[in-house]
C-alpha cells in the first residue's frame, strides 16, 4: 500500500539534487549558521569579556556568561533540587492526566449521550486559560507538591481527552460497518476497530499534553513555590541575575524538546502498521 504513494511524491517538482550545496547537508549547514549567527551577535553586543558592551549585563547576559552560570550551578549542585522537584510535579501530574484523560476520552467518544452531556463543559474548559484557576487551586490545596500536581494534571488532561474523543469518532465508518456485518459485539468492535484507530489521535493528544504540562509546572512554580525550575527562574529574575534566568529557560526548552521527541518516537512506532493515506 505504501509503495503506491511513494512514486507519486517523488515525481513531483523540479528538484535539483546536485548543486553547490549537497542537499542532505544543507539543512544542517543553514541550521548551524542560524544558531551561530544569533549566539555570535548576542555575545558581541553583550557586556561579557568578549563583547562590545552595547547592552547592560543585567538586561541581556551573554552565551558565555550563561555557560559560566550553568557550570557553577551544576557543579555546586544548586540546580539539582529544583530539577528533581519539577520532575516530581511533572511525572505525577502528567501521569495522572494520562490515566484519567485517555479513558475519559474513550468513554466520551464511545457513548454518544455522555458526549452530549459533557460537550459544553469540555468546550468551556478547553477555551479557558486554565492557568487562571491556579490561585484557586493554591487556596484549596496549599502550596505543596499536591497543588502543583493538580495544576499539571488540569493543564494536560483536556488536550488528551479532546484528542482521544476525536480519534474514537474518526474511526472509519466502513470498518464499523464491516465489523457489524460480521456480528461483532460492541466490545469486539471497540477493542479491534476503535481502539487501534484512535491510537494516533491519543498520541497526538499526549504530545500536546507534554507541552501543556510543562506550562503548568512553570506557572505554578512562578506563583507559589520554594523549589523547582520555575521557582529558580523567578527567583533569579527578582535578583536581576539574567544569566541564571536564561539557564533555567534553556533547561525548560531542552526538557520540552526531549519530551516532545520521546512521544514522537512512540508515534512513529505505532504508525508503522498503518497504510499510507494520501
Amino acid at each position: 500500500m505504501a509503495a503506491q504513494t511513494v512514486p507519486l511524491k517523488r515525481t513531483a517538482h523540479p528538484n535539483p539534487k546536485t548543486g553547490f550545496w549537497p542537499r542532505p547537508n544543507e539543512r544542517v549547514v543553514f541550521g548551524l549558521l542560524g544558531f551561530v549567527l544569533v549566539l555570535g551577535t548576542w555575545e558581541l553586543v553583550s557586556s561579557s569579556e568578549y563583547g562590545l558592551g552595547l547592552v547592560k549585563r543585567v538586561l541581556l547576559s551573554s552565551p558565555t556568561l550563561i555557560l559560566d552560570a550553568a557550570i557553577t550551578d551544576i557543579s555546586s549542585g544548586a540546580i539539582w533540587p529544583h530539577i528533581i522537584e519539577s520532575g516530581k510535579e511533572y511525572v505525577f501530574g502528567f501521569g495522572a492526566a494520562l490515566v484519567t484523560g485517555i479513558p475519559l476520552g474513550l468513554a466520551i467518544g464511545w457513548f454518544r449521550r455522555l458526549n452530549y452531556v459533557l460537550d459544553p463543559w469540555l468546550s468551556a474548559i478547553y477555551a479557558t486559560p486554565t492557568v487562571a484557576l491556579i490561585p484557586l487551586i493554591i487556596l484549596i490545596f496549599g502550596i505543596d507538591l499536591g497543588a502543583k500536581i493538580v495544576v499539571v494534571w488540569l493543564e494536560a488532561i483536556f488536550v488528551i481527552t479532546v484528542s482521544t474523543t476525536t480519534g474514537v469518532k474518526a474511526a472509519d465508518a466502513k470498518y464499523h460497518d464491516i465489523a457489524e456485518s460480521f456480528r461483532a459485539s460492541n466490545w469486539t468492535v471497540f477493542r479491534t476497530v476503535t481502539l487501534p484507530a484512535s491510537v494516533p489521535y491519543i498520541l497526538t493528544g499526549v504530545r500536546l499534553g507534554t507541552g501543556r504540562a510543562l506550562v503548568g509546572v512553570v506557572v505554578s512554580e512562578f506563583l507559589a513555590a520554594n523549589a523547582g525550575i520555575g521557582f529558580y527562574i523567578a527567583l533569579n529574575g527578582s535578583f536581576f541575575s539574567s544569566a541564571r534566568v536564561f539557564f533555567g529557560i534553556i533547561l525548560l526548552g531542552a526538557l520540552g524538546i526531549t519530551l516532545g521527541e520521546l512521544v514522537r518516537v512512540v508515534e512513529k512506532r505505532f504508525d508503522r502498521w498503518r497504510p499510507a493515506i494520501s
Partner: protein
Amino acid sequence: MTAASTSLSRRSAPRRRPPPNWFKRHERLVFAVAGVVAFALIWEVGSRLGVINELFFSRPSAIARAGFEEVQLPRFWVDFQASATEFSVGYVIAIVSAIPLGLAAGWYRRLQYTLDPWLNFLNSLPRVALLPILIIWFGLGVESKIAVVFLGAFFSIIIPTIQGVKTTDRRLLDVANSFGASRARVFLTVVGPATVPFIITGLRLGVARALIGVVTGELFAATTGLGVMISRASASFQTDRLLFGVLIFTFTGILGVEAIRRVENYFQRWRPAKQGA
C-alpha cells in the same frame, strides 16, 4: 453557492434517516442543557447544605451576584481595559509579523533551515517561562505582558504557516509550472490560498496561547488587569469574584475561537464540500 455545497454534503451522508420524534431530533441539546442545569443545581444546593465548602468553591448564585457587583465598579473596567489592550496589541503584532515571516520561511527553503533551530527551541519552551526576563526588559507595566502575549501567539501562528506553504498540493504546483506560471504567480494563486486553512489553525491556537500569556503575566507581576483582579480576590478568599474573573477569560476564549471559525468559513466558501468521511 451555498445551495450547491449543502446539496453536495447531503449526498455524502445518505444513510441518515430523519429522526422520528422531537426528543430524538434534539437529543444533543436536551442532554447538554440537562447536564449544565444538573451540575449548577448540585453545586448550588450542595453549597447551601454545606456539603460543598463554600469558601473554596463558592456557588453559582454567588458568582452571578459577584459579577453583577463587579461590573459596576470603575476599577473592574480599568482592569478589563488593561487585559484587553495586552491581548489585542500582542496578538495583532504576532499576526502581522508571524504570517509574512512564516510565508517567507516556507517559500525560501534556506531561510527555514536557518530559523529552524530557534523556532524548534522556542516552540518547545513554555513561553511564559520568559516572563521574568521580559519583566527585566520591559518593566511591570502593560509592555511586558504585550511581549509575552506576542511570543505566545507568534510561534503558534508561524509554525502552521510554514507547514501550510510546504504541504501545498504538488499536483497544483505541477499544473501551474506546466503552464509556465512565474514564481510570484505560483505563490499568489496556488500557495497563498492553500496556506489559508493552516494560517487559520495557527490563529486559533494563537488565541489560547495569547490568553495564557495575559493571565500568567498578570498573575505573576502586574498592577492592573483581570489577572490582578483574580489574585486580589484569591488573597482575600473571595472565591466568587475569582471565579467570575475566570469566567471572563472562558468567554473571551469561546468568543475568540468562534470569531476565527467565522473567518474560516468565510475563506472556505469557494471550496467545494468534501465528499465522503
